[in-house]
């Protein structure tokens, strides 16, 4: 743990925990089946930090973030257990009304698809002002000034004019900028970005990433960055959490993860990437396909695809364990950890 703090990019002296998720469990119930979309996820986030969450489609990244926002649709979903300590308070214990005060003001969120995340029948202005109206009880005039200022900041030209436009009159990149403006409007403590660039073209993606980095520096916001693009993680984040089938399999800082991946899934992931800089060589894919959460095998969820699998893996689900520079959930290292603890 200490190492992570030391390497804090912004050199924050005091390690201030903003968010501490402990053993979060979020389940869905559909057609009689229990789907453990998030099954015992724990992590901490410090002020000013950027945490990346990576993992395959369906591994529970979005559900984790929606659980933090307490926006899991219920039914069919339910937060079945755990704690989410935000600035020391457990969000899961808050009333809906208290949560509403936190959403948008303290914690805000950007979603994957900027095309569908803005309400098509209201102007951008209306959707931006709403945030100020609801949380700060600002008059429309004051709010409008702030909103225009924000739009300028996220790089929308002619903000005074464009603010009157409807979402469909913006391009995808512009819409994502509007979303960012909206999320940052009240200078939140925590910003959750759920694949904010996946739907965008590479050149636009680069613009947005640059913008986010710049704004993060300016506001000092903590960010949870959800993505399946390891490149984005490498470029933006300080810490990474790798998820597989609703569980954290590896959690460490970026340098450590890329330089020295430990979990077989992480290793496989990195190996299966074709790399621009490298010479052409045969890729090493992870065999098999991602698991069906409604129908998980016993033991380690990655077991059927794992090239290092052992007998124990098919029986016992490995717990997330502290290893010197990381946390990891794999039987391969279980002994090592135990040994380390013993020595």
């Amino acid at each position, binding site marked *: 743990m200490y190492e992570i703090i030391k390497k804090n990019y912004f050199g924050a002296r005091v390690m201030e925990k903003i968010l501490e998720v402990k053993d979060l469990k979020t389940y869905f119930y559909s057609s009689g089946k229990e789907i453990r979309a998030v099954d015992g996820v724990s992590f901490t986030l410090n002020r000013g930090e950027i945490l990346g969450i990576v993992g395959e489609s369906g591994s529970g990244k979005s559900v984790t973030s929606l659980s933090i926002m307490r926006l899991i649709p219920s*039914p069919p979903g339910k937060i079945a257990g755990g704690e989410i300590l935000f600035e020391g308070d457990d969000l899961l214990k808050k009333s809906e009304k208290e949560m*509403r*005060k936190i959403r948008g*003001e303290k914690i805000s969120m950007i*979603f994957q698809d900027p095309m569908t995340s803005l*309400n*098509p029948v209201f102007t951008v202005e209306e959707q931006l002002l709403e945030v100020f109206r*609801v*949380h700060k009880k600002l008059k429309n005039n004051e709010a409008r000034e702030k909103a225009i200022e924000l739009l300028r900041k996220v790089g929308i030209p002619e903000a005074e004019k464009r603010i009157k436009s409807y979402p*469909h009159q913006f391009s995808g990149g512009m819409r994502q900028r509007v979303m960012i403006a909206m999320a940052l409007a009240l200078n939140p403590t925590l910003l959750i970005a759920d694949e904010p660039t996946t739907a965008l073209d590479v050149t636009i993606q680069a613009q947005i990433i640059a913008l986010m980095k710049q704004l993060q520096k300016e506001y000092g916001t903590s960010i949870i960055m959800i993505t399946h693009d390891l490149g984005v993680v490498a470029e933006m984040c300080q810490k990474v959490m790798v998820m597989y089938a609703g569980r954290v399999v590896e959690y460490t800082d970026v340098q450590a993860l890329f330089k020295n991946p430990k979990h077989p899934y992480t290793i496989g992931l990195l190996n299966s990437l074709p790399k621009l800089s490298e010479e052409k060589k045969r890729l090493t894919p992870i065999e098999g396909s991602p698991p069906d959460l409604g129908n998980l095998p016993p033991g380690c969820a990655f077991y059927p695809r794992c090239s290092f699998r052992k007998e124990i893996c098919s029986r016992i689900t490995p717990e997330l364990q502290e290893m010197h520079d990381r946390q990891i959930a794999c039987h391969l290292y279980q002994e090592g950890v135990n040994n380390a603890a013993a020595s």
Partner: protein
Amino acid sequence: MANYILKRLFQMIPVLFGITFLSFMLIHFIPGDPVTVILGEHASPERAQELREQLGLNDPLYMQYIKFMNNLFHGDLGRSIITHEKVIKEMATFFPATVELTLAAMFIATVIGISAGIIAAVKQYSWFDNISMVGALTGVSMPIFWLGLMLIYLFAQVLGWLPPSARISVEYSVPTVTNLYLIDTLLAGDWAAFKDALAHLILPAVALGTIPMSIIARMTRSSMLEVLRQDYIRTARAKGLSERLVILKHALKNAFLPVLTVIGLQFGYLLGGAVMTETVFSWPGVGRYIYQAIMARDFPVVQGSITIIALIFVVINLIVDILYTVVDPRIRYQ
């Protein structure tokens, strides 16, 4: 937006022509000689000739159509064979009653239908949802005339709460202004008459409004459910808006779009359903007028009134489309 409206107007042209053509052809679809069918086999030759002339059957078909269209442009839809009155004139006397009935039915249908639909969607799978949706499905399954009869039986006969027929009790006579009795009675300041007219309106309006109400409720619910799944609703929630604001502002405006179209289409249903409702409730409107014309084989009247209703229906749908652009900016800016 003006562009869009113009475009819709242009698109209407072939439809309008089609409507008039179809109506025009109505008489020609009569198997056999229309004049014989209308007048009977033993009509005097003079009378037959006269009718033939009145219907213009002596001209070649295209001339007949040109004449028909020409008359139509001059607001002339032909004359009744029976009363020899102009169809348009007779329609005008019956129309207000139907307008009043239709609007009342639509009012009931939209107010109740939309509210029930919203509540059902927001409380999906609750008892309210279940009951109202079974109710709505039952509603669309009911023959309108049967519902009318049952309402009469229950509310007029057994309970005696509401009158079973007509528009207003004879004891009231209100000066005719709009010929919509609810408005006329209010204009006259005759409160008792207003209440009486309202009492007469309730049963037929409920009978006529039930099916649209059910359809609107179902549509609102499914449209609302669809919208509530959308990302922008999640965005609104993530902004910390109250659930009420999320539903009544962000969701409803979007969910309303398909409902609006359905409402427009339901007007067509209402205009058609009026025939049965007015027959059952002895409501002196266009529906009964058409029914009687059909019984009398008064084809010019059938032809003329159906043309008018179709035109009105087309106009209503145009209005709905225009309203659509007001609600949905995506179309407005296309």
